[in-house]
């Protein structure tokens, strides 16, 4: 069994160029659509239907159908936004940061991670818009010349956030699509049906794989990776500044930008484990996504969990160190007061349970990985909820304190938004190459050359 569990391998040596090309492209081209795909599709469409109903009701009746009140004017919509945009972070981290560090284990997983990013960002993007109440004015965020003679308030962190999200979504789509071009060309060349040839032919833009094309592809991709890696840090720092820029107790803290970056990366590694481990088995990708990939992802999750633990410790320490009564009130109410239950479940899910990943045997246990990942995804939602609600409901004046109780429509919007990610992922799995085939080929050839010498 030692050979099968060899953690030094990022790719199994029995793979050939022909084999890996056929295996990955046949998932989209030839294999029968598996039953689980149809079942998940029904779930995804059901959730999406729920979202449509929830939004229709919201647009008809207004945000009074939610549990928001004054002072808790930012309810679930903003918690969901921060959660979703955090879940999006990992795709960019895996594909750009680990491309720059030349991590070989990145190649089989980055496409899936980037796709996860795109649809999480899409789910995130609708939240601030529907939260506006008068959502039909959302285009006022764009700086366009208008007869009112007004401009957006560019100095506000909330507008920085809009600009950052806009640039991030566009950048992610470009990075994802360009990185897929050579693989789409492979699908075009292997497609047998006329419809497939036309579809992939147009998507591939006529890629030939000439030396000139490869060279400019490589340069452009490297530059994009170098641009995207710091962009993702800026996006989550700015999300943190949305809160830190307000004077609300519990928000007004300089640690929030890195805190949000740590949380974002942790949550997206959690979600990625939940997606990657089952897909690896369902599509029999064990040869290209080896034990080493899972081990590395588990270690990264553990690292992020330690980073967030530090942020939580600082978050609990600072109010008492500063001694400001409002901050102490918020902290005590979260740790021992009305939010104690969810506060401690956040600590357990995001900090305590991931410590199991110190044990090598558990890092190789796929069930444990999925469960820990799912726990983190839930735990991070709780954290986002607590940041938004747990501060607002204990604002400066005790006379305005009010509890926030989410309604059915709050929960329906959250559940429905999961449908966006599911449907997007399912379509991607069915239509596009799910791993970066050309980089796997390079990996195979490098291994072969090393063996020849």
């Amino acid at each position, binding site marked *: 069994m030692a050979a099968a569990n060899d953690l030094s391998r990022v790719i199994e040596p029995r793979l050939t160029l022909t084999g890996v090309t056929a295996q990955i492209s046949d998932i989209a081209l030839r294999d029968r659509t598996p039953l689980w795909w149809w079942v998940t599709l029904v779930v995804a469409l059901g959730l999406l239907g729920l979202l449509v109903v929830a939004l229709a009701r919201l647009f008809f009746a207004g945000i009074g159908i939610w549990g928001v009140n004054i002072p808790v004017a930012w309810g679930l919509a903003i918690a969901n936004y921060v959660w979703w945009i955090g879940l999006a972070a990992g795709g960019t981290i895996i594909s750009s940061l680990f491309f720059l560090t030349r991590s070989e284990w990145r190649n089989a997983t980055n496409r899936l991670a980037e796709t996860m990013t795109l649809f999480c960002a899409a789910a995130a993007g609708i939240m601030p818009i529907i939260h506006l109440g008068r959502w039909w004015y959302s285009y006022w965020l764009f700086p366009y010349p208008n007869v009112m003679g007004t401009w957006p308030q*560019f100095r506000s962190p909330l507008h920085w956030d809009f600009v*950052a999200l806009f640039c991030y979504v566009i*950048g992610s789509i*470009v990075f994802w699509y360009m990185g897929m071009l050579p693989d789409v060309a492979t699908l075009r060349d292997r497609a047998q049906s006329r419809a497939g040839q036309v579809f992939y032919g147009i998507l591939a833009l006529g890629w030939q*794989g*000439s030396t000139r094309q*490869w060279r*400019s592809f490589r340069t452009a991709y490297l530059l994009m990776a170098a*641009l995207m890696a710091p962009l993702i840090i800026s996006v989550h720092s700015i999300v943190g500044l949305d809160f830190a820029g307000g004077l609300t107790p519990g928000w007004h803290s300089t640690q929030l930008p890195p805190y949000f970056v740590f949380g974002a990366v942790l949550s997206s590694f959690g979600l990625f484990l939940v997606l990657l481990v089952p897909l690896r088995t369902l599509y029999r990708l064990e040869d290209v996504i080896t034990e080493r990939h899972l081990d590395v992802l588990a270690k990264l999750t553990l690292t992020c969990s330690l980073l967030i633990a530090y942020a939580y410790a600082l978050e609990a320490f600072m109010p008492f160190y500063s001694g400001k009564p409002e901050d102490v009130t918020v902290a005590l109410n979260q740790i021992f007061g009305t939010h104690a239950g969810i506060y401690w479940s956040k600590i357990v899910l995001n900090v305590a349970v991931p410590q199991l990943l110190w044990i090598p045997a558990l890092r190789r246990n796929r069930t444990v990985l999925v469960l820990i990942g799912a726990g983190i995804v839930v735990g991070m939602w709780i954290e986002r909820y607590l940041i938004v609600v747990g501060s607002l409901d204990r604002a400066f004046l005790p006379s305005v304190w009010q509890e926030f109780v989410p309604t059915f429509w709050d929960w329906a919007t959250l559940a429905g938004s999961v449908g966006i990610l599911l449907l997007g992922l399912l379509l991607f799995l069915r239509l596009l190459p799910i791993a970066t085939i050309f980089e796997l080929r390079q990996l195979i050839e490098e291994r072969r050359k090393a063996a020849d010498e």
Partner: protein
Amino acid sequence: MTAPYGMVAHFERPEALIAALRRLKAEGYERLDAYSPYHVEALDALLARRSPVLPLVVFLAGAAGALCGFFLQYYGLAVAYPVNVGGRPLNSWPAFVPSTYEFTVLFAVAGALIAFLAAARLPRLYHPIFAAPEIERATADRFVLFVAADDPRFDPDRLREFLEGDGPSLVAEVPR
């Protein structure tokens, strides 16, 4: 039959392709190209000239993004629609930095995409090389050498004989 577009030779291994390319270059062939299923770095030195244009375009696009992004905010809030916030300067440049950075990256990424497409001559849905036999394997598992017919030394029969020496799995003419 009209004159061919050129001739291709398929190889199973990149090393064989590189050896054949070296021999052709030594013979004086100039109109050469190679199609590979991944980026073979050794081919760059033989075939593609190192061009600083692409990184330069990305840099200039990023610089344009920084300038446009800053000017947009400055013009909007200091000139067109000045809002006095607690007596602070209208050109509150530190508050413009985050958005300026985002615009810089957006323009640079767009510049990288456009510069790449221009350098790779894409989109171009049809290319004469697609008429070559089994060229679809160049995006899977074959390394394809191409000699254009407009090379002054191009002679189909001599070239075929010459290429056979490197052990290709296929040598074929590309019809025009």
